[in-house]
């Protein structure tokens, strides 16, 4: 056996989410719905230009799309309930455009950090693939708030947000190794 062969995985990750994956994705769905509602609230609470409204509406719709994608992954486990704790943290900061942008950037950084933490626990590849494509977009949305209305490199590139994700233990992995009797 070569060194490279020795490093080959002994089992292939499952495509479908495991039970633990579904609990993690359910948490992610709650976070996405809280983000959707915060964008909705921000648009109701302060005055923005048409271009800003278009951008904020698009960002809110993205989060709604992600919550719906979770529905497809977790099926009956889905509750479609927002994470009230995250919503409450930011809802009081949306009165002016300036404070709302800071709050929404913090929100995006938190959601990205949470989903990153969840991705690092997922065993199923289908969900990992989708979550990865969501996280890169959420990082982009966070960075936008660091570039507009004026560029702040530190604000656009740095994130010290903490993950809100729970740690959920996976069931022991079923072995796929086969033994040949001689």
């Amino acid at each position, binding site marked *: 056996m070569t060194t490279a062969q020795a490093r080959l995985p002994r089992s292939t990750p499952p495509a479908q989410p495991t039970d633990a994956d579904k609990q993690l994705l359910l948490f992610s769905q709650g976070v996405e719905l809280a983000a959707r509602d915060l964008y909705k609230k921000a648009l109701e609470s302060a005055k923005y230009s048409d271009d800003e409204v278009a951008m904020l509406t698009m960002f809110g719709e993205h989060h709604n799309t992600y919550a719906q994608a979770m529905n497809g992954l977790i099926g009956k486990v889905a509750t479609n309930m927002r994470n009230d704790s995250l919503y409450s943290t930011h809802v009081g900061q949306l009165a002016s455009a300036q404070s709302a942008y800071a709050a929404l950037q913090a929100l995006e950084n938190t959601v990205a950090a949470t989903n990153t933490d969840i*991705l*690092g626990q997922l065993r199923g590849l289908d969900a990992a693939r989708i979550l990865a494509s969501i996280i890169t*977009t959420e990082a982009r949305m966070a960075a936008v708030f660091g*570039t*507009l209305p004026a560029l702040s490199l530190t604000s656009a590139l740095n994130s010290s947000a903490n993950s809100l994700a729970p740690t959920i233990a996976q069931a022991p992995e079923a072995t796929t190794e086969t033994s040949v009797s001689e």
Partner: protein
Amino acid sequence: MNNISRRDALRVGGLSVFGAAFLAACGKQSGVVESSNILSEGVVPPTTALPAGIVTDVVLLRTAASLEYNAIDTYNAVLEGGLLTGDYAKLTDAVKRFRDDHQAHADAVNQLVVASGGKAHTCANSRIDTLYIQPALELITAKDNPDMSKDIVALAHALENLATQTYQGVVASLTSPSLRGDAIRVAQDEARHAVVLAQVLNGGYASVGPTTNEATGKPNIASVPSAYGSLSSVLLQVGTPNADGVKAALTLETPSLNGLIYDFVDCQ
């Protein structure tokens, strides 16, 4: 209707038998020792087959590290060559920050490589360099290119998107969940770099989402081009415009099987 006479049929049959016998005589003959030198001049040198390339977590991570060095080398070339001029010179600090971020990413990814039992890869991906970066730099630094600095930013934007896609793409191939988390952590940084550069190229709130250039029908640079991170090819248009005002287009793609940094690939 074709009329074939008995004589014609015998003639064709005879030729077939002769042809078969001739071909058999040209083939392998009993009692004759086979030689690789038959029908050739000189001695055929022995060939050495490449080792089998097996895609593992280590190979994927080494490939990601190699792309970090592509970015580091490109940013160094920009800084050392003084390629940002005029208003774009204000971006020098950003370019230094991006380069330093990529060095930190390369170091972090190589630590994962070593921890996974592999050998750190500390140089650029030569295939990416040869196919995309060098041709782009040649077009950009052409004497008659009126947009050199803007094109440099466009190249950097394309490379940041390519790096984002590479990390996002390997998530589906990495077998370890924790490595997937590590990969997407780096992808986020690259995506943030891309947003800063996108705002330089096409700034303002109206340019955050996807828009189309009415003159060309092609998509404009966008900070958040889609709801989900794309894995499709990255279009880069740089260089001296032709008579119609169109620049040369390069299509960048994430490393494929022939661009991966397998275990047997070393820095030259």
